[in-house]
């Protein structure tokens, strides 16, 4: 056991404490960066809202992927395809009916937003079923190939002109093709608060915000509240997946990850379990996709490139596959440091040193380094292209992680797959004098011969 493990173990409050600590430091850093950038209050609030948004979506996606990979060992590299299907089906169901001459090229079925969300999740789950059915019976790598192919097929399908507009139930609907789809349904927050009769209260809140953000406070408040809403969804995902993992169902999933044949030989219908786990994860990915794109106003197929899938994988690997707490942490760290971090860093550098002229090409950047050992132009060039270098940075982080902490930040702390703690029941006197069983004994400790003769049936007959 390395020293590093103790760092995460020493945070007060355990894993929750660790998450709070990480979130707090991320927010603090962003606020400091905001001060450096000379943001006013509005800018600071917006920056906080954006950060919260990305922490939310990546934590949700990472949790869903953890169900697939961390728990069941299903190698899904088509995450973005399930997100896309979720979003597009939601749009199809919830966009208002087509009106000739309106801004939108196509309409939807005009059903309430929550119906659309459920339909989107269902569609993602069904797509998962269709993809998984043939591939799950084969070995793990086939699922990988099938899922990534599927996600690209989905993207190209939404790009294609054939699905741009068509007629469904006598109304003109469609996916908009390459030019994108306007999401012209009631904005999600409005729909949510109206559903609970709280829209007036919300508008009151917006008005109250005028005290600190005098002009047009609505977008600021919207962003903050939506961020909070996403964090609420993260909690819900976490709750659901924790219960899923800590149950006999989750136990079978874990066994499948470890050795599917053994689970099968013990009488578990592993294909059935794999399909259920896969469909649940896909539905959650669909939901995460919906929550990500719903407030954006429009959606284009090219948003759903495979790189989004890899972002989620990096988040999971940072946090530690197999741990739900780790997934949340990984999502947060990824969003704050790797996803949003570089652009903040770049902005910060160009604000603090406004007069720096960075070279316009790689040649100009590298030649002073070679001719006169002057690294400054090269450094400036690097900082200038940091957004393009984002993927390189992510790759470096991954390599570092693989070498130094392959199990991720929290992956070493496995969550026990059972509803109850598995220590010796109080009603049972320990054979060897009732040593404290809640304390983990690390094996090899011979505590004397614990042969039990009262145990004539070895418990096999169960009473």
């Amino acid at each position, binding site marked *: 056991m390395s020293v590093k493990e103790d760092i995460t173990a020493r945070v007060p409050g355990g894993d929750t404490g660790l998450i709070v600590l990480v979130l707090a430091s991320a927010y603090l850093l962003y606020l400091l960066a905001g001060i450096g950038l000379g943001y006013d209050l509005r800018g600071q609030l917006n920056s906080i809202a954006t950060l919260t948004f990305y922490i939310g979506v990546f934590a949700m996606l990472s949790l869903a992927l953890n169900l697939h990979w961390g728990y069941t060992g299903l190698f899904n590299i088509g995450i973005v395809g399930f997100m896309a299907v979720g979003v597009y089906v939601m749009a199809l169901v919830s966009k208002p009916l087509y009106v000739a001459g309106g801004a939108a090229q196509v309409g939807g079925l005009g059903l309430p937003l929550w119906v659309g969300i459920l339909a989107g999740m269902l569609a993602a789950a069904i797509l998962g079923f269709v993809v998984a059915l043939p591939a799950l019976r084969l070995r793990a790598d086939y699922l990988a190939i099938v899922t990534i192919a599927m996600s690209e097929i989905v993207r190209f399908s939404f790009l294609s002109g054939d699905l741009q507009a068509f007629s469904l139930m006598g109304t003109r609907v469609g996916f908009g093709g390459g030019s994108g789809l306007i999401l012209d349904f009631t904005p999600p927050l409005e729909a949510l608060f109206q559903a609970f009769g709280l829209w007036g209260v919300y508008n009151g809140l917006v008005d109250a915000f005028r005290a600190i953000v005098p002009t047009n406070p609505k977008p600021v408040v919207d962003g903050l509240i939506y961020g909070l809403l996403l964090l609420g969804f993260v909690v819900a995902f976490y709750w659901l997946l924790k219960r899923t993992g800590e149950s006999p*169902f989750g136990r079978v999933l874990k066994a499948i990850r470890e050795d599917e044949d053994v689970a099968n030989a013990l009488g578990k219908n592993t294909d059935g379990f794999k399909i259920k786990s896969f469909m649940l994860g896909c539905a959650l990915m669909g939901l995460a996709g919906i929550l990500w794109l719903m407030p954006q106003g429009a959606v284009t197929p090219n948003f759903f490139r495979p790189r989004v899938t890899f972002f989620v994988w990096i988040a999971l690997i940072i946090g530690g596959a197999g741990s739900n707490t780790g997934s949340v942490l990984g999502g947060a760290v990824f969003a704050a440091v790797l996803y949003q971090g570089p652009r903040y860093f770049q902005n910060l550098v160009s604000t603090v040193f406004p007069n720096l002229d960075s070279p316009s090409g790689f040649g100009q950047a590298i030649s002073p380094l070679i001719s006169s050992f002057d690294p400054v132009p090269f450094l400036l060039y690097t900082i200038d292209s940091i957004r393009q270098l984002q993927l390189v940075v992510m790759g470096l982080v991954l390599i570092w992680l693989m070498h130094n902490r392959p199990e991720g930040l929290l992956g070493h702390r496995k969550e026990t797959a059972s509803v*109850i703690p598995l220590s010796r029941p109080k009603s049972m006197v320990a*054979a060897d004098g009732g040593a404290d069983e809640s304390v983990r004994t690390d094996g090899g400790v011979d505590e004397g011969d*614990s*042969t039990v003769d009262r*145990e004539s049936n070895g418990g096999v*007959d169960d009473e």
Partner: protein
Amino acid sequence: MSDASNPSVDDVANKVDDDALGAFASGVDTTEQFPLQVEGLRKSFGGITAVDGASFEVEAGTLTGLIGPNGAGKSTTFNLITGMLKPDAGTVTFNGEDITGLEPHEIANRGMVRTFQIARELSDMTVLENMMLAPKHQRGEALWRSVTPVLRDDVREQEEELLERVWEVLDFFDIDHIAHEYAGNLSGGQRKLLEMARALLTDPDMLLLDEPFAGVNPTLEKKLLEHVHELREQGYTFLLVEHDMDLIMNNCEHVIVLHQGQVLTEGTPDDIRSNEEVIEAYLGGTV
């Protein structure tokens, strides 16, 4: 019977009675008497025919030994019987039902469970998780029941019952002190014990044990054998692969000798001991 997750003592007793009565009523009640019947089983891997038309029956309530030199096809026979491999030809009948080609879990749920020659522990799960996995038909294996608030209480209740049973078995197998250890950290012998304990927790009618005692210390081996005999007396049936001839001769009622994928001979330990072909097979003679 095969569906009941908890065979009552009565059921088990009936099974023994029936067997005693039916012992000589040949042809009438053979499935009662011989829960496992293997007929003309064949399996080739490329050029190698690992099992070549093996036929045998295992009598209810016995400890039957399956012996043979390395590569005789014993493990492959186990794989064919339990559905891990699909036979090229032949049938497997269990409790009167043709189970040839069924999935392993379907066969396990009919009451026939096997252990693996090379222990296959679930490394990244603790010993306790390994054990808790085994019992069949757990309520919480239904996802909706495990996540829905009120229904989860039922699951919790069953988990508590299972946990007591698991700890009893852990105590019996002498692996209670490593209960919280990851299975991947166990020694070879401990893995074997875990494997057998896990198989027993599924409440099988019949257990197929592939060299279960390899690497287990002699004291514990003796204890496990006693336990096997107890279970056998209650009507459980065992098919045991083992290279230790003394162990086979002293414990099995019936011995089947497999050689080059075929049943060379079978009979009581005394029959086998006096059979020269067997000695030849074991001493490297070419048959």
